[in-house]
């Protein structure tokens, strides 16, 4: 079988339709695992900020997780705050600079375990900030332990026999909880398991940012991201496993959008 030489751009007449990395990443390099979904989510956020022309009007607050790798490569103003506290830090920032796009980057461990009070109170207050939760059902950065979002039966480093609800309780579906609060304006759940879901997730990110710029209230965009390392899986099995396990507890879709009801 002969293959196409893909070491250099085509010599025949063509146009580039996708680049290696988004403009707002300073380098393609990162140390995240093979098959990790988080860099895909990060790329989408970078693309949307660029497309909205908000690179010089945005500040992001990172929690603690593998995504923290992008603290050093994301070309927007960033701070890394205490585990779980990003929505509170975002509140202080937005109140002082209401015209800026303020968003948090958190994982399920950061938001639903450590930071449950912060995200719920910030949503209840209706702060017009956008919180991102990359949900892989594990504390990835520490090697893959259970979080408050891990699903029943999920095997993790500290639930090797699978999460047993009798001992470890049940997962918290934060999206649905936040949507129930009057202060929340936009709650959506996407994923990065295939090109179709990736395109949908990008739309959710864009809509979330647009709702913030319209001062609609609190926004939460949850993105299911593969963690084959944390799931003890070969990388290529990540997407299917994710949609069977996490996907059955965390259904994809727009959970709430008050902005959609506004007249055009």
């Amino acid at each position, binding site marked *: 079988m002969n293959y196409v030489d893909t070491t250099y751009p085509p010599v025949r007449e063509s146009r580039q339709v996708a680049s290696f990395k988004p403009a707002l990443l300073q380098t393609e390099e990162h140390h995240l695992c093979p098959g990790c979904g988080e860099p895909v989510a990060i790329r989408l956020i970078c693309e949307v900020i660029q497309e909205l022309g908000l690179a010089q*009007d*945005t500040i992001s607050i990172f929690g603690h997780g593998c995504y923290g790798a992008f603290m050093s490569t994301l070309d927007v*103003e960033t701070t890394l705050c205490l585990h779980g506290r990003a929505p509170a*830090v975002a*509140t202080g920032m937005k109140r*002082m600079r209401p015209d800026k796009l303020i968003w948090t980057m958190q994982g399920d461990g950061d938001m639903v375990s450590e930071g449950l009070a912060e995200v719920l109170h910030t949503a209840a207050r209706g702060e017009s900030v956008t919180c991102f939760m990359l949900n892989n059902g594990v504390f990835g950065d520490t090697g893959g332990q259970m979080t408050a979002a891990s699903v029943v039966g999920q095997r993790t480093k500290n639930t090797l026999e699978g999460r047993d609800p009798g001992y470890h309780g049940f997962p918290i579906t934060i999206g649905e909880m936040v949507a129930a609060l009057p202060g929340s304006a936009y709650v959506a759940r996407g994923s990065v398991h295939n090109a179709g879901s990736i395109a949908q997730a990008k739309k959710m990110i864009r809509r979330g940012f647009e709702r913030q710029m319209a001062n609609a209230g609190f926004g939460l965009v949850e993105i299911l991201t593969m963690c084959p390392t944390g799931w003890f899986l070969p990388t290529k099995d990540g997407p299917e496993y994710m949609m069977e396990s996490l996907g059955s507890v965390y259904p994809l879709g727009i959970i709430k959008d008050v902005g959609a009801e506004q007249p055009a």
Partner: protein
Amino acid sequence: MSLRLIDGSEAVAEAALSAGLRFYSGYPMSPATDLLEQLAKKLPERGGVCINADTEIEGVNMAIGASMTGFRAATGSCGQGLSLMQEAIAEVALNETPLVIFNMARSQQDYFQATRGGGWGDYRTIALAPKDVPEAVELTQLAFHLSDKYRVPAIVYGDNILARTLTAVDTSPIAFEPLPPRDWALDGTTGGTGRSKQIWTWGVGKHHTPGPGPQLHWRNIADKFARIAETEQRWEAGFHEDAETMVVAFGTAGKFVEYVVEDMRQEGWQVGFFRPITLWPFPEDALERGCKTARQVLVFELNAGQMIDDVRISLGKRVPIRSIGGISSDDAGINIGDRMDASYIRARIIEAMEPVS
């Protein structure tokens, strides 16, 4: 100079506003609640923001966010509330974000908390302990100035007596040396330039603009605190040039001790007083100089012995050091108890000065 008869909580609120406070977030806890209520009313009236935080942890983290964007911000509680904020206080020390924290304390039992801190890392916290409402007004403004100047946390350690005592005070703005612009603050504008800003306790920096990294960053911070220790000590001392017995006290206790010592001097007792104003940096050399003639040093603090550790560090074994205070609380455990009393202090000093029969 315009004086108003107001209580310490209102005076501190006004002083903070005079210092340019734009953001406060707090959670109610006696006796710090009045300060929150004052700012909940006054801050919005003057173009600022006061958020009634649902938890102390959220309150301090909101104030951090506000400060990171370049505005003067503060939070407050009593020592029991500051317990929850320890991680956040260490965080701003290590990521160099200015922050003022008000401790309207229930007692003098917060000294270790204020000066050692319970957060992680090699950090210090500037701790200012006013003796009365007028000094609280001055030290509140100083706290904002020092916090901004050095990009460090600063605690103003008041108490329930100060919070509730009405005094005639002038809370107008005090002029300090001008400070450089906050070029480190985040406002989004360096995004997409290849030189976008980062605030991080690890000092890692970014791909195009690497930082010093954790080890060097933390060493730099430790060096900064060492410099602050050299230059920002403050204290007050009286009748120490020929004192045979020196009495050391901080905060409201310092005012009581000063009063008692003045009285006793008029009766001929060779007693003097020393009051650290900065609990950190503790004025070690000044205390040593102040106790030069002393044959004993008495430490009056209403706790089981906290500041006495710093007195021992300053004086060593050169002179006997004794505690004449002790834990003193009311039945509710919320207010300073009956040992904060001139007669009690006087009796304990005399007991220490009279030869054993």
